């Protein structure tokens, strides 16, 4: 190597002299989970069109079918057919299904979907981008002249991190009830933040494969990929997601908590 050396602008890492934050406290995962499968207007996302949900973990497993904002009730009934459950509007589902199951203190189920950020975004009426996070407004009310955000119901805050993963929580709501407050491990009281699990993130955690599609995850857990178009495909996907959720719970039980 007798050639002239390349003049290099070298880079080395600096050491931030700081202690790490204490490990975050997590309460045990709730017994109940509201599992949601949904479709969007476009293959890559966009507004929610149709969805199906099931509350698992109890003696009963109530289910919902729902349609997105702007979808006419007749179109929704035609999509789901007469033999399936009658579809609700998105706001009705969010009120009856999500709010009652996942926020109100009677159940406080975890909300589970393949991608919670994707579901929250597709169901949102409005999104605000803050410094480090998105805040999705799901609930609205119509005062007769204009549709407005319903601040009495919590908005959903999503803080993205690398690889499409994110931290999700309920934001504070206006005029909370006493039962909305919980006490953290540090003794401070705050409004309930909710429990959210994206099965795509869990699939990565439990397999080490970071670009798994939903179909590949079904294969890895030995679950038959749902077939069919329209509502049958959607309900098939909901069934498969429920099986995937059970499989993931079983895998997590092998690890020390």
């Amino acid at each position, binding site marked *: 190597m007798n050639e002239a050396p390349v003049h290099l602008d070298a880079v080395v890492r600096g050491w931030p*002299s700081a202690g790490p934050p204490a490990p975050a406290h997590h309460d*045990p995962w709730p017994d109940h989970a509201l599992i949601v499968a949904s479709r969007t207007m476009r*293959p*890559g996302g966009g507004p929610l069109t149709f969805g199906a949900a099931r509350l698992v973990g109890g003696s009963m497993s109530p289910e919902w079918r729902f349609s997105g904002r702007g979808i006419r009730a007749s179109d929704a009934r035609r999509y789901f057919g007469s033999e399936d459950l009658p579809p609700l509007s998105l706001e009705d589902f969010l009120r009856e299904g999500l709010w009652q199951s996942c926020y109100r203190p009677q159940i406080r189920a975890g909300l589970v979907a393949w991608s919670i*950020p994707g579901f929250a975004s597709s169901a949102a009426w409005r999104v605000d981008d803050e410094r480090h996070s998105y805040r999705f407004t799901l609930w609205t009310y119509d005062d007769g002249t204009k549709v407005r955000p319903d601040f009495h119901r919590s908005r959903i805050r999503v803080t993205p991190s690398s690889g499409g993963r994110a931290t999700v929580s309920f934001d504070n709501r206006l005029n909370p009830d006493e039962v909305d407050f919980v006490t953290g491990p540090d003794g401070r009281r705050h409004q309930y933040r909710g429990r*959210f699990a994206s099965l795509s993130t869990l699939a990565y955690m439990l*397999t080490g494969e*970071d670009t798994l599609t939903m179909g590949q995850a079904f294969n890895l857990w030995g679950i038959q990929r749902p077939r069919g178009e329209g509502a049958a495909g959607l309900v098939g996907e909901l069934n498969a997601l429920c099986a995937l959720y059970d499989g993931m719970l079983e*895998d997590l039980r092998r690890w020390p*908590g």
Partner: protein
Amino acid sequence: MIPLDAGASPAYLAKRVAQLAVPRPPYLRPGMSPMGKAAAMAAHLGGKSATMIRGVAVPGVLVDGTAAYPVVGSLVGTTRWLQAERIDQRLLVPGRGLDAFLAELAMLDIPALLAGPAAWELLTCCLLVEPDADVLAVRGRGPGEREDRTSTTSVERGRYPVWHMGPRVLASYLMTGRMPRVLRAYTWRPVGIVAGCRPVSLPGGIVFDPARMRPRSGDTFNDLASAIAEMALRAKTGTLDGINRLAMDRLAGSGKVGRNGIAYGQAVEFNRSDRTHPVWGPFGILPSMTAEEPGWLADPAVGALATAGCELMLTLLELIVAQAGGSIAFADTDAAFVLVTHDGDEIPVDGRGVDGEPIPQCAGTITFERLVEILNRFRGLAEATCLSIPAHDVIPEGEGYRLPVVDPPGILRSVFKVTGENLIDGELWTPGLHCYATAQKRYVLFREEEGKRVSPKSSAFVLGTLANFRRDGELDLGRVEEAWRIGPDLADGGVPAGAVGIDLDEPVFQPMVMSALGDWRALGPLKFATENPEGIRPFETVLVPVSAGKHRARLVAFYEPDRATWRDLALRDPKGLTWITRTADRLIVVLRARGGKVQVVQSLGAWLTDHFSNPEPMTSGGDGRPCEEATRGMLSPRPVRIAELRIAGQETHRRRDEEGVQGWDVQVEQEVFARFCRAPGCRTVLVGRQRKWCEKHREYPGSRRQAWAK
């Protein structure tokens, strides 16, 4: 049970075990000074990745390290630092122990390193080296380059000394026969076990017990990385107790990421925080502050030693292969492609210079039997780890050898394995595997079978980031293989042999998930809003074109899986204007047809031609000139001289380097904490508007400063 919303990666599972077993993070472990940690952090570089034979198919065998990071951590002992009561740190300077320590290092040779962990434990040190034609790893960019790259090359005498971990300094010593000039060194030894440690069980009955003195008793290990590596190894071979096959496959995958997280990744994990902290550089504390914050397991010496140890392991393999008259086509972190032929003779290599002129070259090869002997020389290291690294018999069969797994000792047991890509039916090695490499991490392995080229492994590096190589979101390995089949012909300017199974005229698009806030904000009026309910929502996947020639605007299209529609896909820019895309050969049609905004997009054929002719950076070809697109054959690293030095924070998301969403120029730059004055010996940090010289040296005569710049 771990709550479902507690973690986001397999490394979290491993971290949780660490938190349960050891009551204190490494940060609170006494012994290491901030300057010691800063030295280790400055010495931290990624693994070695280099192409030695470019653009020529050569026969051989791919060997790969088994659980390389835990193995190295186990040998140097850093995987047991987690539970250490304290670290005994010594600062050695000339006249105060440095000479004796270097003399001890100089006693180490290949046999001593292969004998067992005793020699490796001496390498838990960080040395401030003044390079002078030493073969060392450096990261940076040459004149005119915009990206930093890591290369192992001859580093000439420069303006700045650099910190290097012990294994890298020893690797240089073994390659050059000359110990680098060391100005000072930190050495570290773990002492004791912190009170409050407790055993924790992993899936499959493997136990991590930090209080144990012996590395392994039954299924109990005293280091976490090894315990997880053992779990993953047994899951891979289907021998974990009480777990079904599918679950074991999943555990093998998560265990692999988890063990690497404990042995390497989490030791150099940093996250953004809301607080600011002081920063230390290679020569002391810096005037700047940062919002970066170490993770719970951050321990820079552990992370830096893991990659440095892997590089030493690869260097040992390269040296032993070279001593046997062989050569290597490429090396990548813990893997290498060793040239193997039936007679072990030299083979001709059709080298070419920058201008395409032929440069006949020869590459040494070894026989498979010789390779087995070489790999088996690493047996002592494999046994020292106490892991269930499989042993093999080597039984002649036809033209090749069968490598059945047997109970140890067997004929072959090593920290390097003959990978599955070399084998037929999982254990039969036959000659015929070829490697064609073009640049770092860009290679294909193939065999010729019945006139057809079969690829057991085609690197999807960068290719996998294109929507053109995905079907329903999943990587389409058939298209990746086809790209590798025709890519070399395209790079040579020729016509691919046989029918081409992919449409080379289709435009190139990349899928991009709009998750980062900066990316979504950059959409401007295309963003979803109550008034624009059909706009692009956060976390929506869109398509971004790869522009050819001048990049005229940031453009996106709604995600469209049907490639047939891509030619007429309407794109929008952040001003809301609609654009059409055309590949260069269809541009004339557009110009004749109508005006309007047009972005020229690369066709897949043009993109593949660029991709497969991408030169290997920081290398020279057989003509002695820097590697360019036409360069073929054996490469040698170009010497470098460190002319400038930046102190930087965590590398940003590797989108630009590796995940290539080109044409979406919303990038988060790597935070630069400091630059230093260019005057020789000056360690003053530049502040304010200073770019090259500190306050004192900018007053020096220009001629003198020009002389320094040279």
